[in-house]
């Protein structure tokens, strides 16, 4: 016969075992539901604004007519030029005519603005971002040139083999104003086409005509104003989860709650990983939304982020981003693109970021290694053709230095702008 006390003990034991199982489960998977963006938007609808904020050109160039051009580096100038694009191009309409690559290249000889996206962006991305149906005669947009005038004509390149000219008729716009505003005092550049260098370069590579006129602010990795590392780190983990902090040599810090891990390198880099929970497959637009929402939420002080590319992998998608700071792109020696997010099973399973933010060092550097020197140096590094040759910031070993970025058919070399080292 079982006594009352033994029965009570048995009940208590069963209760404790059950409690232990339940608590272990919550410790493993967290008290709350996973972060909205990590569950394919099931918990919360991601705003289309998240997408529209990152669907931007990587470069906007002002063409003054003839051989004179300049890239827009200041943020306010970039924003107003981007607004003009949206109000002219996304309004739709107009008559389209197929043109040649040569016609497209020649359009940069007129007073106009050139918008260069990092990759051929599918129209479906823009439609998802803008919440309306825009149906141009191309499926993707890579480069667009909008000519100045009251009846603006614009040229589109789909990034593959299609070039079209769109005639809109009268449409009030501010393209000429933007061209005129930039005409005074901007350092001038000529394209490789203007200079006749197209036997070894893409026609639209910009070469500074007077490098002595150009100075670049010196920057370093740093936290944005009003941010602290603890709150930034805690944002990666669910509230209520137990996060362990592990110090590694030579000063890197790892945070983990068992399922998620965050490594903050001593040089400022950040790597986040999370094991997948579900097996829900999402489409590419949703993957970009999830990834962009994650980046916006967890790296709020990193600057102007734009989409640099999306690749479909066996388990999901790899989404890459560009960062503009002081008008220049920031790249990473270790990662290439400054932010890379992996989406698997409809959630973020990995993010690599060059740093969490930037700070200006209140000094400037000039161009000690000219564009042609950079070509000679990259020639020794194996490049024979230059698809891209542009000024950028390169983050490497805790430092951010001004550099030339030379790209040929996927091979990328960085040339230090001060000492010419590869």
């Amino acid at each position, binding site marked *: 016969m079982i006594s009352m006390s033994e029965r009570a003990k048995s009940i208590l034991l069963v209760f404790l075992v059950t409690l232990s199982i339940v608590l272990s489960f919550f410790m493993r998977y967290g008290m709350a539901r996973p972060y909205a963006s990590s569950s394919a938007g099931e918990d919360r609808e991601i705003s289309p604004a998240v997408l529209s904020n990152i669907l931007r050109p990587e470069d906007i160039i002002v063409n003054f007519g003839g051989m004179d051009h300049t890239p827009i580096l200041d943020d306010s100038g970039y924003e107003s030029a981007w607004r003009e694009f949206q109000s002219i191009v996304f309004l739709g309409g107009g008559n389209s005519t197929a043109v040649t690559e040569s016609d497209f290249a020649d359009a940069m000889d007129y007073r106009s603005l050139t918008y260069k996206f990092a990759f051929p962006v599918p129209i479906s991305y823009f439609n998802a971002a803008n919440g309306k149906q825009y149906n141009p005669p191309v499926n993707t947009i890579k480069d667009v040139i909008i000519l100045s005038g009251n009846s603006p004509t614009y040229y589109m390149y789909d990034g593959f083999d299609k070039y079209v000219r769109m005639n809109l008729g009268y449409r009030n716009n501010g393209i000429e104003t933007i061209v005129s505003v930039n005409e005074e005092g901007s350092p001038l550049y*000529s394209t490789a086409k*203007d200079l006749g260098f197209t036997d070894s370069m893409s026609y639209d590579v910009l070469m500074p*005509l007077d490098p002595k006129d150009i100075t670049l602010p010196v920057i370093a990795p740093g936290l944005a104003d009003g941010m602290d590392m603890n709150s930034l780190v805690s944002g990666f983990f669910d509230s209520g989860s137990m996060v362990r902090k592990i110090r590694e040599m030579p000063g890197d810090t790892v945070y983990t709650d068992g399922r998620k891990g965050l490594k903050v390198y001593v040089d400022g880099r950040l790597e986040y990983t999370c094991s997948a929970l579900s097996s829900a497959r999402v489409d590419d637009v949703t993957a970009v939304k999830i990834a962009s929402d994650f980046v916006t939420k967890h790296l709020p002080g990193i600057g102007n982020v734009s989409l640099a590319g999306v690749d479909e992998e066996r388990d999901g998608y790899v989404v890459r981003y560009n960062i503009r700071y002081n008008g220049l792109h920031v790249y990473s020696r270790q990662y290439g693109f400054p932010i890379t997010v992996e989406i698997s099973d409809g959630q973020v399973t990995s993010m690599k970021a060059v740093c969490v933010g930037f700070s200006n060092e209140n000094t400037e550097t000039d161009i000690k290694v000219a564009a*042609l*020197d950079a070509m000679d140096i990259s*020639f020794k590094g194996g490049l024979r053709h230059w698809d891209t040759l542009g000024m950028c910031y390169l983050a490497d070993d805790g430092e951010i230095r001004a550099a030339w970025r030379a790209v040929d058919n996927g091979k990328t070399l960085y040339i230090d702008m001060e000492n010419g080292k590869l």
Partner: protein
Amino acid sequence: MKKISLLLVLIMLLMASSPAFADGTETQLIQLYSDLPAVAYTSTSAISGRVVAGASVEVKLNNAEIYKRPGGAVGYFYTTVKDLKMGGNTVVITAKKGSQTQTITGLITRRSGDTTNSVETLDIPIKNAISISFK
């Protein structure tokens, strides 16, 4: 027969006097890409081209050096030509590689903007209006 022989000799003399046949060992070092105009209406213009790998290049405007680039692997060169004075301006581009030298001389006439009626026949790109010398 004498006339034909004389004609052949004349043709051979003409060929020998052209730069391409002046010396069988000479190499063209400079290839100009820019259409630097014979007539300019502003004080600024630009010049670009390519020299053979390893050749240095120097550009002088009215005998003053405005651009110098040591021999490189790719050979491109470009520079703005600023401060053109009214009237004639001499642009001299010199490339050197070892013992070889090539000089291209161009004349840019800067005119005021209101004299366009007189320049139509003078607007010849520098590529067609140069003298080329080899040493």
